[in-house]
């Protein structure tokens, strides 16, 4: 059994030329990654000046990519490890935690532990995005915040009320708890900061870091977006598909996905009252949803005894795992953990989206796993279950190198506060949540029916006039008719003729009569006599 754990030593460098070449190749590959797409093809450009400018720009981009690649090469010494079978008959999922633990270093051993909290009910857990802190929420009102790096309990208190979900807000300073009636916000000392009464009877919470939005579903099958920096309720939509506690946000575009009892998975953004995408994923209620960090894959578990992994680019199920799952989670490196009862499975992409069982684990029988969550930047999987909490080691699950611009597990308080300010300054508006955030700043395709704005019409008119002025050749006429005044007049006429259609358009935009809405005759109406058909109304659904 070969076991490769995180190797922390930087790669030794031999002066051998082939190795150097290899490094160069690697650098090139990485540089390509940092170029973020192909170089623009400038051959078709006619404008020489623009061409020159863009060439310079491309050069700068290339240099930046190179620098970034070099930085990555030298600043990222550790690689993720994973369990590898030594012979083809060996299976990695047969390896137990007990056999892993003696092999790893002391620090890693300390990361695997159990907490027995039998009294206050099933626990849900949540890690901070940098993996340093963890929230424990017992269903019967037990809340605890733990520094998992130092193994230090920061605060533990009782709300004496049912707790349905916990979530960290921007950093470890604040966290939100979905309690029996309202959502509450506490600080790290356990002081209640806010009671968000807008969202009553919350079921599940999710936090969108870049947008400062706290998203929650409630008992009335509503989806509720609230800006935690201003307190404003950004949106509150009725899903119309029943109350649900299956929610997950897409890390790529911050779209919220909800799983419903009808087997549907709906994707929402705060600026539209209807789901962007509705997918029929299962022939039964959906029990859990999780997104791959790339945002392209989503895993759903349904009551029809299936766990499916979907590719959102093709809207196709690329893998289907038989069995129930109460909870799902993707790790930073793309491992999928699913838990059912006291059994936990971890599936791994073996390449080309071919998922295979990677590890299994079972907690003492009778314990019901409620939540599985991978700890960011660590090879640890946290399990919140009915008898407390336990964390197990899953090699190769976490990102081995952290980017302090993104998340820093070791950040000081000053860094934290600076980051908070920066995040506030960089806060994205709720409109920027969309299926393809790459389209922001790009040229929007004009809708067919879309009317031109007044300014655009004016611009077009000016262009047309300029063209007419530069191109129109006025014929020389006979003696009397060739006076300069007449020529000028003729020219003006031409200009006016060019302007005319645009002026008409402008007038239309100004005082176009409001178009009558076409009524769609309903099927119900067919039963009625013709004269009464027009009064037939759509039945409220």
């Amino acid at each position, binding site marked *: 059994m070969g076991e490769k754990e995180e190797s922390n030593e930087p790669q030794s460098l031999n002066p051998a030329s082939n190795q150097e070449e290899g490094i160069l190749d690697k650098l090139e590959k990485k540089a390509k990654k940092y170029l973020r797409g192909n170089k623009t093809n400038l051959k078709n450009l006619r404008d020489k000046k623009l061409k020159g400018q863009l060439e*310079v720009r491309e050069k700068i981009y290339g240099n*930046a990519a190179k620098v970034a690649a070099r930085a990555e090469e030298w600043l990222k010494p550790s690689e993720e490890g994973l369990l590898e079978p030594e012979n083809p008959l060996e299976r990695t999922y047969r390896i137990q935690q007990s056999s892993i633990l003696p092999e790893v270093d002391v620090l890693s051993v300390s990361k695997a532990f159990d907490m027995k909290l039998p009294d206050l*009910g099933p626990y849900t857990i949540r890690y901070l995005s940098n993996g340093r802190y963890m929230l424990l929420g017992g269903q019967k009102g037990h809340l605890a915040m733990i520094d998992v790096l130092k193994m230090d309990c920061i605060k533990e208190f009782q709300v004496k009320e049912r707790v349905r979900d916990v979530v960290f807000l921007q950093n470890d300073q604040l966290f939100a708890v979905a309690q029996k009636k309202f959502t509450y916000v506490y600080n790290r000392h356990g002081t209640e900061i806010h009671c968000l009464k807008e969202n009553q009877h919350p079921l599940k919470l999710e936090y969108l870091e870049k947008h400062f939005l706290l998203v929650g579903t409630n008992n009335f099958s509503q989806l509720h977006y609230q800006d935690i920096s201003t307190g404003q309720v950004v949106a509150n939509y009725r899903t119309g598909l029943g109350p649900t506690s299956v929610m997950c946000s897409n890390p790529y575009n911050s779209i919220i996905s909800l799983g419903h009892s009808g087997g549907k998975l709906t994707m929402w953004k705060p600026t539209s009252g209807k789901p962007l995408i*509705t997918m029929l994923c299962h022939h039964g209620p959906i029990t859990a949803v999780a997104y791959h960090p790339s945002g392209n894959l989503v895993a759903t578990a349904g009551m029809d005894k299936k766990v499916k992994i979907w590719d959102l680019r093709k809207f196709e199920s690329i893998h289907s795992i038989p069995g*129930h799952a109460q909870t799902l989670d993707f790790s930073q490196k793309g491992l999928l953990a699913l838990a059912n009862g006291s059994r936990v499975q971890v599936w791994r992409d073996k390449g080309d989206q071919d998922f295979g069982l990677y590890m299994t684990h079972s907690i003492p029988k009778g314990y019901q796993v409620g939540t599985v969550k991978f700890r960011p930047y660590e090879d640890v999987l946290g399990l919140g279950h009915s008898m407390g909490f336990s964390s197990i080691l899953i090699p190769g699950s976490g990102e081995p190198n952290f980017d302090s611009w993104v998340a820093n597990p070791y950040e000081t308080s000053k860094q934290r506060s600076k980051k908070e300010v920066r995040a506030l300054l960089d806060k994205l508006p709720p*409109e*920027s949540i969309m299926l393809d955030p790459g389209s922001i700043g790009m040229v929007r395709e004009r809708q067919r029916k879309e009317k031109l704005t007044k300014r655009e019409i004016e611009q077009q008119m000016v262009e047309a006039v300029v063209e007419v002025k530069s191109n129109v050749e006025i014929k020389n006429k006979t003696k009397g008719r060739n006076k300069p005044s007449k020529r000028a007049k003729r020219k003006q006429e031409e200009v006016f003729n060019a302007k005319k259609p645009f002026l008409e358009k402008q007038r239309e935009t100004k005082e176009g009569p409001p178009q009558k809405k076409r009524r769609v005759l309903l099927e119900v109406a067919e039963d009625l006599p013709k004269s009464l058909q027009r009064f037939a109304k759509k039945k409220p659904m």
Partner: protein
Amino acid sequence: MADSTEKNRKKQKRTKAKAVESTFLSKTRKPEKKGKRKGRDNDQRKRRGGGPRLPNVLRQELGLDAKRNSSSDSDSEGGEDVRDFYELDEEVAQEESGKNRRFDEVENYQYELPDDFEDEEVPSDEGEDDSDKSEGEDQRDKEDGERHLRMLQDITGIPKEAFDGEKKKREEVLLSQADVRSEIVTIHDLLAPLQGMPGYSSLRKRVLQQEKQPMTLQAPLPKSERDKVQRKVSDKFARKEITKWEGVVKRNREAPTLFFEQDQNLGYSTVGAIASGFEPRTEFEKQMAQLRQDPELVEAYKNDGAKMLELNKVSVKDVIDRQNRLAKMRSLLFRHEMKAKRIKKIKSKTYHKIKKKERQKAASAELEMNPEAAKQQAIKQEQKRAEERLTLKHKNSSKWAKRILKRGLDVQDDATRAAIAEQLQKHEELKRKMNSMNNNESSTDEESSDDDDEEEDESKRALKALNKAKEKTAKVLEEGDEAPKKGLFALPFMERGLKKRQEEAYEEARQALEDYDATLNQLQDEGEEGEEETQQNSSAVKMTGKRTFGPAKKPVAQEYNKRKRLDDFGKDSDSEEEDGEFDEPVPQIIEDKNDKTEGVQLGTALLDEEQVMAQHAIFRNLDDMEKAVGPKTSYEVAIFAGDSFRKVRSDSGHSNKATTSSVIHTSKPSHETKETDQSYETDSDTEMVEGFLTTNLITDQKPDYELPSQAELVRRVFAGDDVAAEFERDKLETLNEENPEPEKPALVPGWGQWTHVQKKKGLPDWMVREHEEKKRKRGEALKKRKDAKFDHVIISETINRKAEKLMATSLPFPFTSKEAYEGNMRMPIGPDFNPASALSALNRPEIIKKPGLIIQPIEYEEVDPDETHDQPKRIIQGAKPKQSSKEKSKKGKLSNKLVPKTLGKKVKST
């Protein structure tokens, strides 16, 4: 001496003349002679054309050229030439000098030769040459000779005759020459003797050829053309001069960033720094400075200033007080002003009347208080009275009054009459003699006595008033029914109405009368009882107040309670919520229905939000089923969705019944399904413990899966089917919403239905066609949808208006293609995505320059045109521009490339 050398030269030429013709060809004539010359040429040509060519000598003999001969004869030495010279002077005089402008100015006359005319026909004879020479020079020679003689004489002091001999000799030679060739020699003359010699024929040929060539001359170019040519040439040079800058400019233009020297001392940066360096220059400034720095003045200022400051000392409190006072005054003033403004605006007459009265009252009060004012008032009154008596202004003396009186007072309306009366009264008032103080008192006595009486017994006055009222009412009653018996009121129904009203009024009056009587009696009684009674009365009022308040309050409260209770009956849910049994605001219907099953509901301790939720789901499903037109057979399907519990019934009977039954059911299944429902999130504490226990028991073998019963399986299967169908329906709905189905063609209700003709014909063709077209379009639109290929996906195609502002509507300026723009945009340039070392290059501005830096004019450098811009930045002004320019002048190319400072120094030192 010069002459002698010239002579020698001439002699040499004479010897060579015949052999070398080319020298003659290139020889030029002086411009003064061209007029004359031309004429002669013409003559020659005519002659040539006229007949056979003869030598000039022969011609002379023949007498062909008699005229000329005669003239030439008359002249002695080189006569013709001399005359020519004079002629020329005269000819040029007017027209050609341009003084006489009667004619259009012509650049060049036809008979004239251009300036640069090369005389090719100059006769190549030696004599001719000589004479040619002599023509201009003879005169000069003569003069020169004389001058020379004089000079020699002066220098040597020898008499003039000593040198004369030489000159005479020369003159003789000239004379002899002139004798031989007294007329012009043409080239033909010269050729004649050569006849028969070798090379003669070719020479003659050439001469003839030249003669054949036309003699017309090119007109000089017009001025504009000439200018153009000149411009062209100068442009070439200018272009050369300017293009040398091209390289520099191009490089600067292409550079993504221009740096203007960063480390330069910009001098003063603050006003203080500028002021400190100030030095007086002008007279005035100097004077000022002197005054300012005068020690005496400074001293005095220092002393005095300090004192003044001491005197000026005001305590902070005083200042604040003063400010407060001022503020108060200001606000008061403002308020007053506003009030005055408002009052000024009021136009109501009654208001002003009241105001006036008030004013008068105030004035009278003042009169009483202030004797001085009273005196003044009296004086004023007196004045007015005198005026009135004098003018009789108010005694119908005005125009208006006279006119009215003239027309007769009886004719006027009441108002006018009243006005006139008032006027007269005013007159009377004014005219009345002012009462003295005593008089005033006496006059008011009567009234005051009345007042006193009234004061004495108010009751009496009341009595009086009451009596009066009684009388009046009685009178009214007596007057009774004097209804108008004419016109409208004579109509029967009007009469009836009137009667009725009168009766009512009568009744009222009678009642009033009774009241009066009663009160009168009371008053009379009271008058006897006195004050005590009144006190009691007041207390009674108080008592009654108390008394009434108690019971009055109670009924109100009771009423309120009642109302509330009624309300409660009306909407039970509210009160229940308040009671706190149901904390969850649940839709109304459920609450109502819960009431009906209260016994079941409230009794169970399990009643929780979950159950409510379950009911919720049920109702939703029922609604669904109502909508769905499915088979009439009834199934009971239960599905567990998370923690919600669904119950489906395809057969929808009485909803109430259904709900009650389902509610009763719910408590059971929730217990039963505990095992299969693996959701850990179950409800109450006890249940959870149970859940543990059960799961403990069950998960011994297979924790996550229990083989379901057959019925369960069937249920699940049906549930699945239902889900798919539901989704299909949903998809259809969204499709219809986003691409609505076209309206079915229909006639306007009633159109053509009378005759049934339209019915038989059916719908008009165009309607049907339109409908088809729309249908087709819709079909296309549906096919184009992103989710057209997927059965299990609905992709909303509604446009997000809010996100539109995050995108560009058109390509930004320099870009012409979308591809280039998007390619340029693909790279993030923020610090989150790029290493710090690459960041500055990514978002460097176009120009970097210190504020306040003066941008020097561009300096010339030689630039390699093929140079590529490897350097992203380009420094325009080096740290020491002067030094660099020096370097440039010295080293040329070296300094053009950006030489680092140290290197530059090295270069300089070597």
